[in-house]
């Protein structure tokens, strides 16, 4: 399995949509009137860029063996409804030990003027396949 530390993925734009923000707020039991929930970053930051990692054939991330182990967000400010933000993902580290692979995936989100809005750091743990001595018999 290739370690892919240092890999960067293309920038993706998203508008902070009022309807989707309200749906997200209700889903976490928050009041939509309170504005954009902080972890809406799961949508405009991590959620926008993680598909690049999961869809990267070289990354070879098996969804069924993936655990989201840690998550950190840092904000310069919270985004406003109606603004467009840009998120870029990168693999900060990718190390394997004792049958586990640890991928630190970072996403920087900026506003339309290029000012930093949010930084996301996700730690994914992927349980590596233990190769059987023989292929299992198929019925």
């Amino acid at each position, binding site marked *: 399995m290739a370690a892919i530390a240092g890999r960067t993925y293309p920038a993706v734009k998203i508008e902070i949509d009022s309807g989707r923000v309200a749906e997200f707020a209700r889903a976490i*039991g*928050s009041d939509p009137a309170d504005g954009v929930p902080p*972890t809406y970053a*799961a949508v405009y930051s991590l959620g926008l860029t993680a598909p690049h990692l999961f869809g990267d054939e070289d990354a070879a991330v098996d*969804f069924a063996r993936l655990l989201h*182990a*840690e998550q*950190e967000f*840092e904000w310069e*400010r919270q985004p406003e409804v109606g603004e467009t933000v840009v998120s870029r993902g990168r693999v900060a580290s990718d190390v394997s030990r004792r049958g586990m692979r640890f991928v630190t995936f970072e996403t920087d989100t900026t506003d339309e003027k290029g000012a930093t809005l949010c930084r996301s750091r996700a730690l994914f743990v992927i349980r590596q396949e233990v190769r059987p001595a023989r292929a299992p018999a198929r019925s």
Partner: protein
Amino acid sequence: MTERRITFTREQIAAYAEASGDHNPIHLDDEFARSAGLPGVIAHGMLQMGIAATVAAEAAGGPDHLRRLFVRFAGMVEPGDTVTFRAEPNGPNKLGLSALNQRGEAVLTKAVAEYDGHPLPSGERDQGRGA
């Protein structure tokens, strides 16, 4: 101390999948979840973090004040589990966050929030209201 107690349901987990766009079948499909070695569907860690963040935002004086959040997803949350989320002052502009299930097990660990501004700790606010 700010606190919220939530009993997770399949409906809430499905609503979060829809709203967040995270359609990983371990949250939606029992059979798939079991094939992945889980007891059945589990809640998204990000749903737990979302609720913890709501509690943290309330303690910080509003979501705009939050500057940093960190959590470690330490335990699975299944439909029917009741989790108590708490935020408590932990130093200047810092909150310690906890999330304990009905068995007293931590489902989030090392969870912290940082915020700007200097709102009164919720304990002092509560005393103020009672006076």
